[in-house]
């Protein structure tokens, strides 16, 4: 299928470390789905545009139909306007890269398929849901219901969802790695009371704990990458098209590792980074120093997958605990 999961993950990690602005996880997941539907001229055209870097197809999830009004208290400012107004819309919340996108691939979880939108008059961006992450653009997207009905329906999703969530975890891991290295280096050079702060146990021991935890996250992500990569390459479409279900035990095990990776990073990275700010002191608290940019980003990575809760619930269901009596 032409995708190296390990390469994509390495790339995502570098993007996270560098605070890259592109929607890599979603774009990769979109391309993965599109590649499975080739032969269709619209799809082929878009895929080619993506591969040469000229087009961006954002990846998102449609909220269930009939959900309450898309916007909160600021609806007059943020509400759905223009071509895509009124009642006949469906929302996709928190779509990474939506502001830059010229196409959307939106999962319809109720129908177990995805809808491809390439006509700009079929969607409308509302403003970003919270603007917390400043390194990437993100927005809620309102889609005309008729466009959903008539739009391109892609049913072979392959491992798109697993891939998307894993790349988000890999992205956050990049932030963790880069900032941990930076803080360790800072701790070795910043002197207080005549010695480096890193020579003070209260600082050094926390950095040691963070390094161990970061290694754990790293290895869990690597294991998930390995499994997704191995399984995907000789997957004979057996479990294709049914996101979130474990059609085969291989698919179940794959999703389990993706959930482990998502839960590991989303529950570990935010606290870890927040403590790195503490260990860096006043300079760490500045906008310019930039630790916060990574904090914002790792929270966004978590939010895009509704983690840690979604991943933890997935583990619970996968283990059968939810059915226990």
């Amino acid at each position: 299928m032409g995708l190296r999961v390990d390469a994509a993950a390495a790339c995502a990690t570098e993007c996270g470390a560098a605070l890259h602005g592109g929607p890599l996880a979603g774009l990769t997941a979109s391309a993965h789905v599109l590649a499975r539907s080739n032969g269709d001229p619209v799809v082929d055209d878009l895929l080619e545009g993506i591969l040469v870097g000229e087009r961006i197809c954002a990846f998102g999830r449609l909220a269930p139909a009939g959900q309450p009004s898309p916007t909160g208290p600021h609806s007059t400012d943020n509400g759905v306007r223009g071509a895509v107004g009124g009642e006949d819309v469906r929302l996709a919340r928190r779509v990474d890269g939506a502001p830059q996108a010229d196409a959307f691939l939106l999962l319809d979880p109720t129908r177990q398929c995805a809808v491809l939108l390439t006509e700009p008059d079929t969607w409308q961006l509302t403003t970003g849901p919270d603007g917390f992450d400043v390194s990437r653009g993100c927005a809620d997207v309102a889609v005309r219901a008729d466009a959903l009905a008539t739009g391109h329906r892609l049913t072979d999703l392959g491992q798109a969802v697993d891939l998307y969530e894993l790349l988000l975890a890999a992205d956050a891991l990049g932030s963790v790695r880069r900032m941990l290295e930076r803080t360790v280096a800072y701790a070795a050079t910043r002197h207080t009371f005549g010695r480096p702060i890193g020579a003070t146990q209260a600082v050094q021991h926390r950095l040691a704990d963070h390094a161990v935890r970061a290694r754990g996250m790293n290895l869990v992500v690597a294991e998930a990458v390995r499994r997704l990569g191995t399984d995907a390459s000789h997957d004979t479409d057996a479990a294709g098209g049914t996101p979130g279900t474990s059609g085969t035990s291989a698919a179940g095990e794959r999703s389990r590792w993706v959930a482990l990776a998502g839960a590991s990073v989303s529950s570990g990275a935010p606290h870890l980074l927040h403590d790195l700010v503490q260990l860096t002191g006043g300079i760490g608290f500045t906008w310019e120093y930039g630790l916060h940019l990574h904090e914002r980003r790792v929270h966004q990575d978590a939010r895009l997958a509704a983690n840690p809760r979604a991943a933890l619930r997935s583990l619970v269901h996968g283990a059968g605990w939810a059915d226990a009596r």
Partner: protein
Amino acid sequence: MPADVDTGRQAEARDEIDAYRREVRAFIAEHGVRMPAEGVRVPRDADHEKRIRAWLAALYAAGHLGAGWPVRWGGRAGHLPVHDLVLMEELIRGDAYRPIDQVMLAAHSLLEFGSEAQRRELLPKIRSAEHVWCQLFSEPEAGSDLAALRTRARPAPDGNGWLVSGQKIWSTDAQWADMGTLLARTDPDVARHAGITAFVIPMTLAGLDIRPIREMTGHAEFCEVFLDEVRVGPEHVLGEVGGGWQVVTSGLASERAFVGANSVQLERMFTDLVALARAARFADGTAAITHEDIQAKLAGALVRVEEVRLIVRDAVDRILVDEEHPSDGPVGKLAYTELNVALTELAMEIIDSAVVVDDIAADVVARWHHNFLWGRALTISGGASEIIRGLIGRQLLGLPRA
């Protein structure tokens, strides 16, 4: 099937490893003596002791233990370090009495520092389990800061050897050990690490007074050992006079792959945690595991378990190809022992929150009570977590000594 080492980088040797695993499993089923509880080694009575020694001797005789020793001393040609790991994994799975750390350490110290005469006399007695060893290192005033030890070895008045006086403490198995590795200060006038000498001594020497100490688990596994003018000779010196610190730091030269078995330990603990959550009932009669808050905690614990199992396996992968980083041991120890404590705390939280635990899980509860208390031993002994964090800070992160 759990993710053992044989599903990792060792895939090419998988058949061979599987075969060895089956062999070990059968051996344990046939000869194994049960491990009374985690960390409990001291025999209940003479008969128990006889069976323990016979079992340990059988492990050596069959070439499962001591296989990595030089062939001359009973090691097996073609021994693969991964076999050590498989052995330990299966001993844990089979709930079998495991080799005693202090004995293995003694063996490796003898192999590295022992004289020809010492090796010839003592190594075979380790293999036959005629000798159980203990470690007489820590003192009331010297634990983490071991080099502060004060037990003195003074030259004997007759010029023949030394008279050793002082107090050792936390000496695991000293009450039934036949031999001890002793650290004493032979020269108080040089730099403190340089004045220490290691001795290998029979625990029957005159002047030794051994008193078991009851631990917080209720068992009496470690002891205080008083030394009152215990006479030792040059034949008891291990390595060089004044070279005791090298013996200490050479540490775990072999069977390093044993650490990988912690992965199996965690897998078993997690299984026990789920068993507990199924059997523990809240006031309304529902099982703990049916509640979302408990499910979330279990899932969170599972994530940590998988993280640490991979940390351990990652280190073992390097050990097996001899590419270990000095920080691998400390990282693995800290990650494993601290997670172990966290798991026991979660188990206690579930037990505390329940009004009753189903009868069928009575043994599970008893195990958690014991493991909760015992878990603390692992974060204190063999380098307390605070000391380990310092090692990681220096060896992995390159930070200055605190």
